């Protein structure tokens, strides 16, 4: 029997499995208090998913004060939509608005790597569509366990082919991301997905259900039993002892994606937007219809009535609770004026997209959901969508933080002879975290749609937005979890600084920030300390750089066994470039006669470095210093240099230091170089230190003086570090030796194919 509101009123004492659904005693009590009765099964399903950590941000929301406290009016002015919408939107000029967001799909991707990663891509793309934008490109920051662990051979190929399988079939270029290995991710890989989209400023659609009498239309795939997760507890209550009797079968909690359906849905949505017949729109992702209906209703100016029995299903005998919490993929929900419904249906029919009127916007402020005429949900929608519990979790600096920081890298044995240094360069180039990502990125289509100007292995991905003017955007995501572990505040600012620098290195001006904060359990005070430090570091860093955080995502409970992952606040920075034709490539040698200049200061900084990790398995000390004013100056100079045609190539220095940057620069450019180290500084430090705020640029000899004079005048340290040598076919480092490019390439490109086939 269906648990109706009337039934709930009549049976106030009926026991409900709220604990199995993840609700705490006091949370359940609060639901009863809000409703003045016990919730129905359907209401319990809605509250339990919407009040989950994933949907409600109950442990993290209290820290959002750092975003608002650090957003100045000038920063706010660039945002057309910010935190709280499906995705942040920024004005990039010429009447274009760009929306972008990062999201996690970590836990499903461990259970079922291919589908977990695929639906992660699908979900973030729908978030971007829900803003009224055409999705333009995706990026995927990924983290895996030890490269040689047997389970990594299961997880990594599955995740990579899932990201590719979905994105390629969807027709979105994959323009970058990260692949990082660390044993802390062994039982908990990180799959973060970023999507960027663009629209004309006037076409921005915000998710809201306004206008009494307007119709609510569900369109896209049918609703099934996949991805129901915890709510199956309710199903098993209702259907206990009925195994197979109704033809139902339990499906895995990980959703299954169909990129073909999503591709058609994208084109259908864009045609609907172009027709101007969408009042409000919302994607169905986590928490499915529970989320879409409650968010649409609470953002509008009225209530909403939904007839749940009209939802097209692909399984028999689904209960209202199951329909509300199904996470079947490739579905959207729109609010449409009654006079536009026919036109809406015509567009959907053209694309063979199933569309069903499931309800309407009503007077009043209740979300009422009926099932064959009986009311199964009658709630104030804001209490479901926005007024969930909020916790001030205990915070405590880890007891071992001091000893971790005291255990610096100073005692580690360093290579010193030329032969040792040469061998170290090759060893580092072949290390799993620094080796070429080609094995991964070759599985992603980077060309589709014809707007990709830069993609991996460039420091940032760049997409042309306006074909006439050449206006475009650049995006980079970064995070070194070891730096964050050593000092979460500084480490997060280093992630911000690196992504910011990577955008500037392409010639674009950094404009806005998104993030995906991957951490361990919020119930662990040490994790919450890391989290609070990271949020504060990011917020204050963004203020200093003058670029706003437009949105983000939090993923807690990431741990291998009882050990939390390295805290991994992935930071994404978006930049704008007025004409993509002046982008700065990564590879040197495009112009005859180039000088290599190293910009910035190199210090003896090895805490959390790739060298300490790879060679000594060491993590301790302090991360490199961060100087955001310097990063800003560096970015200004790179953009100015690009604008005036003074820079022919540039590559930032980060993991692996100058040595790795040189390796990549010559191999990507397919040309040799001669490098002169500073005789006054230890060659090892110069080659492998990971000091922040540094970039290697190649300038045509004719521009060298003009460029270096600009650096000197503006106070940016620079050093003439080498020359491009088109004849030699080697990377020659004075005082270290020569490495022929084929030998270098074999080291750099051989590792991932050897590991993963």
């Amino acid at each position: 029997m269906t648990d109706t509101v009337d039934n709930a009123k009549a049976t106030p004492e009926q026991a409900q499995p709220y604990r199995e659904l993840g609700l705490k005693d006091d949370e359940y009590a609060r639901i009863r208090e809000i409703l003045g009765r016990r919730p129905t099964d359907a209401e319990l399903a809605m509250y339990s998913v919407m009040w989950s950590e994933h949907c409600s941000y109950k442990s993290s929301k209290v820290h959002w004060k750092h975003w608002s406290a650090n957003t100045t009016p000038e920063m706010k002015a660039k945002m057309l939509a910010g935190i709280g919408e499906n995705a942040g939107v920024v004005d990039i000029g010429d009447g274009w608005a760009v929306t972008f967001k990062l999201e996690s799909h970590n836990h499903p991707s461990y259970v079922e790597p291919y589908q977990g990663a695929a639906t992660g891509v699908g979900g973030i793309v729908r978030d971007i569509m829900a803003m009224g934008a055409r999705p333009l490109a995706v990026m995927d920051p990924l983290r895996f366990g030890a490269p040689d662990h047997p389970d990594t051979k299961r997880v990594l190929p599955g995740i990579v082919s899932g990201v590719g399988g979905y994105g390629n079939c969807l027709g979105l270029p994959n323009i970058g991301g990260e692949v990082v290995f660390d044993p802390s991710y062994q039982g908990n890989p990180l799959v973060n997905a970023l999507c960027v989209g663009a629209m004309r400023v006037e076409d921005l659609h915000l998710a809201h259900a306004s206008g009494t009498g307007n119709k609510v239309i569900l369109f896209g795939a049918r609703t099934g039993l996949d991805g129901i997760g915890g709510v199956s507890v309710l199903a098993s209550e209702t259907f206990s002892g009925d195994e197979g009797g109704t033809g139902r079968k339990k499906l895995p909690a990980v959703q299954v994606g169909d990129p073909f359906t999503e591709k058609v849905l994208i084109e259908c949505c864009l045609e609907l937007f172009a027709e101007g017949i969408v009042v409000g729109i919302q994607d169905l992702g986590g928490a499915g219809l529970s989320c879409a209906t409650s968010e649409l209703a609470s953002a509008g100016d009225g209530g909403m009535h939904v007839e749940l029995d009209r939802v097209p299903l692909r399984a028999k005998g689904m209960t209202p609770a199951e329909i509300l919490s199904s996470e079947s993929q490739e579905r959207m929900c729109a609010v449409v004026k009654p006079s536009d419904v026919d036109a809406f249906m015509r567009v959907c029919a053209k694309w063979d997209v199933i569309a069903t009127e499931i309800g309407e916007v009503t007077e009043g402020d209740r979300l009422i959901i009926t099932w064959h005429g009986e009311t199964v949900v009658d709630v104030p929608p804001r209490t479901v969508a926005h007024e969930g519990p909020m916790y001030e979790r205990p915070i405590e600096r880890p007891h071992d933080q001091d000893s971790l920081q005291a255990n610096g890298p100073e005692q580690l044995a360093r290579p010193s002879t030329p032969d040792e240094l040469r061998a170290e360069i090759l060893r580092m180039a072949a290390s799993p975290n620094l080796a070429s990502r080609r094995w991964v990125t070759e599985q992603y289509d980077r060309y589709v749609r014809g707007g990709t100007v830069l993609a991996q292995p460039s420091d940032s991905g760049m997409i042309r937005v306006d074909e006439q003017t050449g206006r475009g955007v650049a995006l980079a995501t970064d995070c070194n979890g070891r730096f964050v572990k050593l000092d979460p505040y500084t480490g997060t600012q280093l992630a911000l600084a690196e992504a910011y620098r990577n955008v500037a290195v392409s010639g674009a001006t950094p404009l806005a920030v998104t993030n995906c904060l991957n951490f361990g359990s919020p119930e662990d005070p040490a994790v919450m300390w890391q989290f609070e430090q990271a949020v504060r570091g990011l917020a204050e860093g963004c203020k200093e750089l003058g670029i706003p955080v437009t949105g983000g995502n939090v993923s807690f409970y990431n741990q291998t066994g009882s050990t939390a992952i390295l805290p991994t606040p992935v930071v994404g920075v978006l930049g704008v470039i007025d004409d993509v034709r002046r982008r700065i490539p990564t590879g040197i040698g495009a112009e005859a006669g180039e000088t290599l200049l190293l910009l910035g200061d190199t210090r003896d900084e090895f805490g959390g470095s790739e060298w300490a990790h790879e060679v000594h398995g060491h993590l301790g000390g302090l991360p490199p210093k961060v100087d955001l004013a310097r990063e800003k100056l560096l970015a200004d100079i790179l953009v100015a240099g690009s604008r005036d045609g003074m820079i022919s190539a540039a590559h930032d220095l980060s993991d692996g230091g100058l040595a790795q940057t040189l390796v990549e620069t010559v191999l990507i450019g397919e040309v040799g170089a001669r490098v002169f180290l500073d005789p006054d500084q230890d060659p090892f430090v110069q080659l492998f230190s990971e000091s922040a705020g540094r970039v290697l640029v190649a300038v045509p000899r004719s521009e060298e003086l003009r460029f270096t004079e600009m650096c000197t005048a503006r106070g940016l340290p620079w050093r003439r570090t080498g020359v491009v040598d088109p004849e030699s076919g080697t990377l020659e480092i004075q005082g270290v030796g020569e490495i022929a490019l084929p030998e270098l390439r074999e080291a750099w490109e051989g590792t991932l194919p050897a590991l993963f086939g």
Partner: protein
Amino acid sequence: MRIGAVTFPGTLDDSDTARAITASGAEAVALWHGDADLKGVDAVILPGGFSYGDYLRAGAIARFAPVMGEIIDAARKGMPVLGICNGFQVLCEAGLLPGALLRNAGLHFVCRDQWLKVENNNTAWTTRYDANAEIIIPIKNMDGRYTASKSTVDELEGEGRVVFRYTGGNPNGSFDDIAGVSDPTGRIVGLMPHPEHAIDALTGPSDDGLGMFLSALDSVVAA
């Protein structure tokens, strides 16, 4: 001069193909899978993608679309037709070109800048290239391994109907390094790599692909 680019549900490179047609100086005409209407075009391109999700088998469902009946008729009468990637698969499924495309030898999707040798510069789509020209254009597919019976391949090789061959490494295990083939008339050509992604060195590895679109213009004018 009007060149059509067909959109099936799941076609991905239709806008890229239209851009390349425009760049060659022709007018790009959008053709819809459900309309049995070629809108008076002079040549047709079937772009890449995953038509109908590539469910069942790549290209297997698309060949039954209403627009395909018109294309098959026009092709038999000599209209130049180019199938790129999924479009090549559709032409094979439709029987306009011999052979079939199987899953890549490495079982991975492969996206890379690929060197090709133009083996036949007398087809409707290759006259702008020098004989044996080497060009670099992107390849990106899951099912790109060309295969055909021994006798068919002998026939193709003997008649100069292998139009493009992979050089500098075979990306997918294709028989005889075959990247593209033509029908006996040279009016119908299919290839796995994507010339529409190589019309401008800003967004592709080169502008080597433009020659195919320009060649079609020449062949229509000459006809």
